[in-house]
């Protein structure tokens, strides 16, 4: 088995986990930079997937399963957006080219994102795997993901003998998440778009690892693990709910101001807060997970709310912790009960 993008937390965790499965003889971990974390007993090969060396790696190791996890929104260690795009798109093309040449490859798993659906007010409320997006993502990671999926579809056509599984993950959260959305929730005060309350869905890191495992092994009886699947936890959280559960106050800003501020901080290089991220936090996105349950046979352990709660536990408490607010209301309740029908005005808002 060959895994790309192992220098990231998620890739590292997956490599460590997959070695414990009896079906896996050997794991070859590939990335352009050496990982900071240990990879268990996996063989690390430092190779840039943008270069043709990846074809030699694949040919020499004779891997039968390729898990492509190097499709990401942010650069590791402060690379520019151009580097990320090149790794995503050119890297995928090189890797797919290598797979096409390799007679040993039997299975390909690609980590994609629900970003491919975009986020627009004219979209249906819930996306299924076949929903065509009303507005294709204009740039950034979302566009990369769309292009990557396009190349993967082309590969699947040319190599019908290879089982191809594309997993479209909702926003990945967990105690160790390092996604742009996780860093957004880490801000002391959350800037939001005035007049919009987006619906968000999350998937927990543990579930990500688990579903990648299911996709990279032989399918279990009665399930099929090739095709495109949306992966998300059950349920939906509104951004306002997220901020209240985190205890972080929100600052509603007008949409043009948010777009302008977003481009300003991007220019200054403070955060990588992309336009499609702003669109997500404006219009939100919810995907349908019936295919994940029924065809792939995967049931996530964490709901959206559960994944978010687990993430929130790893965060420093906000300015308005929900426990404090709840305690204030409880004290007020005790006070009114004592006053007996002469309740006081409360300023808990």
């Amino acid at each position, binding site marked *: 088995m060959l895994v790309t993008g192992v220098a990231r937390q998620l890739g590292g965790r997956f490599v460590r986990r997959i070695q414990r499965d009896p079906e896996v003889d050997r794991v070859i971990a590939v990335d352009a930079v050496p990982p900071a974390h240990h990879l268990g007993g996996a063989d690390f090969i430092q190779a840039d997937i943008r270069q043709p060396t990846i074809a030699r790696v694949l040919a020499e190791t004779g891997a039968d399963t390729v898990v492509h996890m190097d499709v990401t929104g942010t650069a590791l260690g402060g690379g520019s957006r151009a580097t990320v795009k090149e790794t995503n798109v050119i890297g995928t093309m090189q890797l797919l080219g290598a797979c096409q040449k390799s007679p040993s490859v039997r299975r390909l798993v690609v980590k994609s994102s629900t970003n491919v659906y975009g986020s627009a007010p*004219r979209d249906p409320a819930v996306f299924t795997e076949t929903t065509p997006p009303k507005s294709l993502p204009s740039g950034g990671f979302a566009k990369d993901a769309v292009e990557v999926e396009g190349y993967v579809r082309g590969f699947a056509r040319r190599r019908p003998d290879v089982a191809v599984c594309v997993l479209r993950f909702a926003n990945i959260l967990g105690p160790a998440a390092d996604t742009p959305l996780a860093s957004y929730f880490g801000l002391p005060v959350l800037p939001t778009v005035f007049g919009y309350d987006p619906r968000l869905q999350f998937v927990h890191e543990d579930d990500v690892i688990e579903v990648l495992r299911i996709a990279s092994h032989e399918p279990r009886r009665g399930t099929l693990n090739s095709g495109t699947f949306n992966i998300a936890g059950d349920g*939906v959280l509104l951004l306002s709910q997220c901020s209240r559960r985190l205890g972080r106050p929100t600052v509603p800003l007008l949409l043009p101001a948010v777009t302008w501020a977003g481009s300003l901080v991007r220019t200054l290089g403070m955060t990588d807060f992309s336009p499609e991220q702003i669109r997500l936090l404006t219009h939100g996105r919810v995907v349908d997970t019936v295919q994940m349950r029924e065809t792939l046979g995967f049931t996530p352990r964490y709901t959206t709310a559960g994944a978010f709660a687990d993430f929130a536990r790893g965060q420093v408490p906000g300015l308005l912790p929900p426990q404090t607010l709840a305690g204030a209301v409880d004290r007020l309740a005790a006070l009114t009960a004592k006053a*007996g029908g002469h309740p006081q005005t409360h300023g808990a808002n």
Partner: protein
Amino acid sequence: MADAKVIPFDDDRSRGSAAQRPARRRSAGSRRGALGEPGEVGSVQPLPGRERAQDGSAGREEEPRESREPSDAGGHDGGLERRVAAGLAFLRRRLTGDYEVDDFGYDEELTDQVLMSLLRPVYDKYFRVEVKGVENIPAEGGALIVANHSGTLPLDGLMMQVAVHDHHPAGRHLRLLAADLVFVLPVVNELARKLGHTLACAEDAERLLAQGELVGVMPEGFKGIGKPFGERYKLQRFGRGGFVSTALRQGAPIIPCSIVGAEEIYPMLGNAKTLARVLGIPYFPLTPTFPWLGPLGAIPLPTKWTIQFGEPIATDGYPPEAAEDPMLMFNLTDQVREQIQHTLYKLLVQRRSVFF
């Protein structure tokens, strides 16, 4: 479509002449006259149970408001403390984010406790809505309510939502399908989602019907809501009949709904098309008061409304491929449209005046 007959505005006041005049022309309905007839004869009679239902809703109306603002509560009955406690529990859940929304962003708790209480005074006191035929809405399972659309601003949809929620014995929630413009506008889209509305598209409608929800749709769309005052109560084209194929695919009954009174809330005398195009909206209404009086001109006229739910039209008897049959789709669309139009005429004939 043969053009429907419009009852002149003045006829509403002179009741004697309206009664003599046949309210509808048969020519339009001759093709399918047999289809729309049977259910209509008795359908405009007021329900015996209606008053009781209204009383119940009036009693319920005050509670959530008071419990949310305990300081306003003037009564010294024993229920006050309980209400204060309930209000504080509600406040606690809201502040800590401990509430549920569904996939469409529908916030049932907020809708029931706050938003409905804000709409109810408008419904009860301002438009004094009279509801008929609410027993035609099934107590459970998916159903599609199809209504006429009018009034420049979509207040009719909101009033229909309150009507279903307050008068239906099962307290069902109506999930409205709204135009895409609603979801583009800030604040409006947030409130619409929390009220349970979603985009008027086949995917969302089917998903809601499959979940067994009661879905409300106004197929006339902007053509209906933005038509000039002279064409009031004259139904426009019913879209492309997409609602029929959606209902057919889910086997959900179609319930025609006629709303009288919404046409006159903003008499739209003109349409500033250039201004509308500049603002990116489908029409810019010019009424006797708007925009001349500024925000004051945007206050709707206090008309008296009637909402009549008609006999359901079953769609589960058709074979699965029926949803792909354009002829059947057009016929069903026409049937629904005629039933609504005929009920509109009947209600208009019965109406004593626009305002009472």
